[in-house]
């Protein structure tokens, strides 16, 4: 039955993956990949945390976008556009590729009489081809009928505008990537508006008056603008996916597919893993019995043995154990459960079934790579009394603190351990004008030799089976040492490759302090040594870290050779060198409700100094969606296309797809352009995330999993 039920739940999950039927409705999306009419915006907001992917085509332009509802009133969009037959010096084979970012904020929410009002910045740090701003209001007159009216600036004031404030540059910027503040809300203003009518929940019909004359496309891509009136129709599938067709500007047919998902509603609720053991309650007579303490040493040994076996059935590891007449301390290794509360809950129940009845206090010390990360203190009588109550009752009676000084020593009986696995892998590259999306798929053999829980040698070797990453041929000149832009060389020459091969030492030098030393082939392009120190009090939302690296460039074949820190530019022929040493000081802050920020200040691989700011929204189930930007002392001219390093990060927990508990995730980082400025090492075992997961704010957030 487990399998069948599991599969049914998985299927439910798979259906959810195909676009969950959401309680709140996802609004209709426009050709810019944001809530709107046909080409014009409206003032609707998607439900909080909606992640929407759109792909549309209008005339000769392909537009793809990803939008994220950052907060209930704030949405951000990244768009990638290719306009064919576009006459511009940056076009590749006649196709002009453009990346742009939008931000939209809801000033007023809709009321009985009041419309929703939204202000938007379109293409606000790009090259400026889509640059425009707007103020738009939408009112629902009756269910299924909405009217929208707004004022546009920039591109959205190109048709029938009137004079506004100041002058506005029309130039398409060469390098792009700078916030175009000097243009915002400048120049002409034009009105736009429209009506959306949904006769039922499947269909929406739209008509709009557009204030966009498509000047650039008309001049450079042969676009015909005959009319400001655009017509559209959306069909909403049962899964929530939207198919839209449009007739735009009296000349052009367009179509778009919109796929919306939400990290809050995707996946099997609570997972499909097997049931935990129930709590085993004690009688008063048993609790009073201290007879077993006469031979504490042998009682400890035999109890530890049975507890270790019981934890193993829960896919948990006993890393250390201490038993006193009234208290037991378990040093717990969790490599299974994404929610630490679940690991703690399962361990506590195993303890309740095995430990002598007089033991009342359970101290569970979650251990990350041998580093005791915190201490969770539970009373056994609370476990007995609250097993069938709301989980927050148990949370209220649970103590959180630093791992105690006398944390039980690591039990090394099972060490050294050797673990290996063979599994498929994929690699990808985006936004190369010659092939905007490239992917490799192959087999990855991974091995890990654990001398002790905190001294670990690990590595992997990948062999490609199919893919086209090696077809990247575009070389572009760099004014910096080519610390990242030689990626095409690596993609071509490295097969099979060893992405990483490292020896890691993890430690806890003092309370609230965690350390890491990694030696070897640290990442695909660099080898050397990396040392990190993290200060993170267990009850704090704030943490500080420092990382110091000594690196040398690896050979293009990504095997064992090194090639020194000198690079020669294939275009200019100039040879440049860069330092061996780089590193950062980092500050981390958890604002609560899943909003996190990280600031790194230091020296980057190419020797440039500067800072990276990262904002992330994290969900209790492990989804993370973030954006980062790095500004260094490299000028935007020297940096090249994009002006400075920036990008988006999407991290999806594996458990969403499988329904089974897991601490793993799949992380994709999308940079608009990979250049050499602001480049950091891609080390995969940095401390902050893993340590923080065991601290009170994170454990409490997923506490509902304690009894799962």
């Amino acid at each position, binding site marked *: *039955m*487990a*399998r*069948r*039920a599991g*599969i*049914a*739940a*998985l299927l*439910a*999950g*798979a259906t959810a993956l195909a676009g969950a039927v959401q309680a709140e409705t996802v609004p209709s999306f426009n050709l810019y990949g944001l809530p709107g009419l046909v080409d014009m915006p409206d003032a609707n907001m998607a439900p909080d945390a909606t992640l929407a992917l759109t792909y549309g085509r209008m005339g000769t332009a392909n537009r793809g976008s990803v939008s994220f509802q950052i907060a209930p009133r704030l949405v951000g969009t990244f768009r990638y556009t290719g306009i064919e037959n576009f006459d511009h010096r940056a076009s590749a084979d006649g196709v002009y590729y453009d990346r742009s970012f939008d931000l939209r904020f809801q000033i007023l929410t809709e009321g009985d009489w009041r419309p929703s009002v939204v202000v938007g910045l379109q293409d606000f740090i790009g090259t400026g081809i889509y640059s425009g701003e707007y103020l738009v209001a939408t009112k629902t007159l009756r269910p299924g009928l909405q009217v929208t009216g707004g004022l546009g600036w920039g591109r959205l004031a190109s048709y029938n505008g009137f004079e506004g404030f100041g002058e506005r540059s029309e130039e398409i910027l060469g390098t792009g990537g700078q916030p175009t503040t000097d243009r915002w809300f400048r120049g002409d203003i034009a009105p736009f508006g429209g009506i959306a009518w949904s006769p039922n929940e499947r269909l929406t019909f739209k008509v709009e008056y557009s204030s966009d004359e498509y000047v650039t496309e008309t001049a450079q891509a042969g676009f015909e603008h005959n009319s400001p009136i655009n017509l559209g129709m959306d069909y909403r599938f049962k899964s929530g996916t939207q198919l839209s067709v449009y007739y735009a500007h009296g000349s052009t047919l367009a179509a778009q597919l919109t796929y919306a998902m939400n*990290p*809050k*509603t*995707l*996946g*099997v*609720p*609570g*997972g*499909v*893993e*097997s*049931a*935990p053991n*129930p*709590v*085993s*309650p004690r009688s008063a007579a048993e609790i009073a019995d201290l007879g077993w303490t006469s031979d504490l040493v042998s009682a400890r040994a035999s109890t530890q043995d049975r507890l270790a076996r019981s934890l193993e059935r829960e*896919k948990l590891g006993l890393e250390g154990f201490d038993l006193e007449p009234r208290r037991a301390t378990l040093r717990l290794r969790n*490599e299974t459960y994404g929610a630490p509360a679940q690991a703690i809950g399962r361990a506590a129940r195993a303890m309740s079934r095995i430990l002598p009845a007089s033991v009342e206090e359970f101290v569970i010390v979650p251990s990350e790579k041998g580093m005791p990360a915190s201490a969770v203190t539970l009373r056994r009588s609370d476990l007995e009394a609250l097993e*069938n109550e*709301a*989980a*927050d009752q148990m949370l209220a009676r649970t103590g959180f603190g630093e791992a105690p000084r006398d944390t039980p020593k690591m039990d090394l009986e099972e060490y050294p351990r050797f*673990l*290996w*696995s*063979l*599994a*498929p892998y994929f690699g990808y590259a985006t936004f190369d004008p010659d092939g905007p999306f490239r992917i490799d798929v192959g*087999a990855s053999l*991974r091995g890990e030799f654990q001398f002790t829980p905190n001294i670990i040698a690990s590595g992997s070797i990948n062999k490609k*089976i*199919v893919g086209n990453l090696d077809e990247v041929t575009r070389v572009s000149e760099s004014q910096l040492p080519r610390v990242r832009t030689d990626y095409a060389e690596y993609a071509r020459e490295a097969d099979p490759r060893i992405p990483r091969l490292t020896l890691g030492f993890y430690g806890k030098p003092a309370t609230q302090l965690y350390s890491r030393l990694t030696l070897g082939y640290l990442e695909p392009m660099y080898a050397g040594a990396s040392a990190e120190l993290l200060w993170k009090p267990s009850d704090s939302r704030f943490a500080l870290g420092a990382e110091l690296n000594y690196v040398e460039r690896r050979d293009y074949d990504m095997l064992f050779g090194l090639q020194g820190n000198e690079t020669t530019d294939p275009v200019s022929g100039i040879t440049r060198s860069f330092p061996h040493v780089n590193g950062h000081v980092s500050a981390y802050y958890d604002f609560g409700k899943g909003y996190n920020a990280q600031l790194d200040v230091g020296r980057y691989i190419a020797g440039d100094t500067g800072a990276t700011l990262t904002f992330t929204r994290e*969900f*209790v*189930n492990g989804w993370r969606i973030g954006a980062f930007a790095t500004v260094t002392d490299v000028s935007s001219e020297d940096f090249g296309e994009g002006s400075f390093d920036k990008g988006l990060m999407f991290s999806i927990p594996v458990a*969403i*797809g*499988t*329904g089974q508990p897991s*601490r*793993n995730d799949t992380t994709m980082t999308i940079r608009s352009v990979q250049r050499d400025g602001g480049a950091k090492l891609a080390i995969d075992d940095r401390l902050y995330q893993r340590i923080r997961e065991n601290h009170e704010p994170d454990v409490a*957030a*997923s506490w*509902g*999993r304690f009894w*799962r």
Partner: protein
Amino acid sequence: MTFKTTCRAGLLAGLIATLAACGNDDRRDPLLESAYESLFGGFGAEEQTPITDQQVGQALAATDRPVIRFTVLDREAEALAVEIERNGAHRTYATADRQAIVLRNGLITATRGLGGDLMSVEEDRLLGLLRGRSAGQATYVQRYLTPEDVTEALSFTCTVTPGQSSDIAQGVIRTSVTVMQAACSDGQGTAFTDSYLVDGSGEIVTSKQWLGETTGYATMQQLRR
């Protein structure tokens, strides 16, 4: 598709089928295997058949502990579960596949391992009416985890009505019972009707209960108390 790419695609499919994460490292997730299982019903998944009287007899003979039959109606999945623990008034029953059902006087108060599990309930008033075989209104709260792992509490108002009495025989239980119905609604569009057979001691010996969006209705039958 050229011959070469066909070959490679075949090789890839073979690789995925045979090597979908092998090794001794549990931390590496069997992603493809799970995807395959969800699409094609798993590697050699058996056809689900109802539990036969013979299986019930075998199960009752194999243990002297309390046994229930548990069925998830929408999934047509059925299993026998044996009592493995008692904590106060709560009894935990487990199936051979490590799924668990918790009963209090025969009322399902929690499930584990079904997917979309009922985590806990506030059932005192509802259970009081059912056990007294009396009509009335009762509040009833069910708690679930959302896909985000946040606890969600659904608060219902239930109207309880007693029905006819009859004699039943199931497993080793022979008793006379009263039919009870509880029509529950949260006032926001979620509504269900549970039914129970309650014996003279106030124990629910058979029930059909709604266990949330994911599981839907499930039936429970006590075969031995």
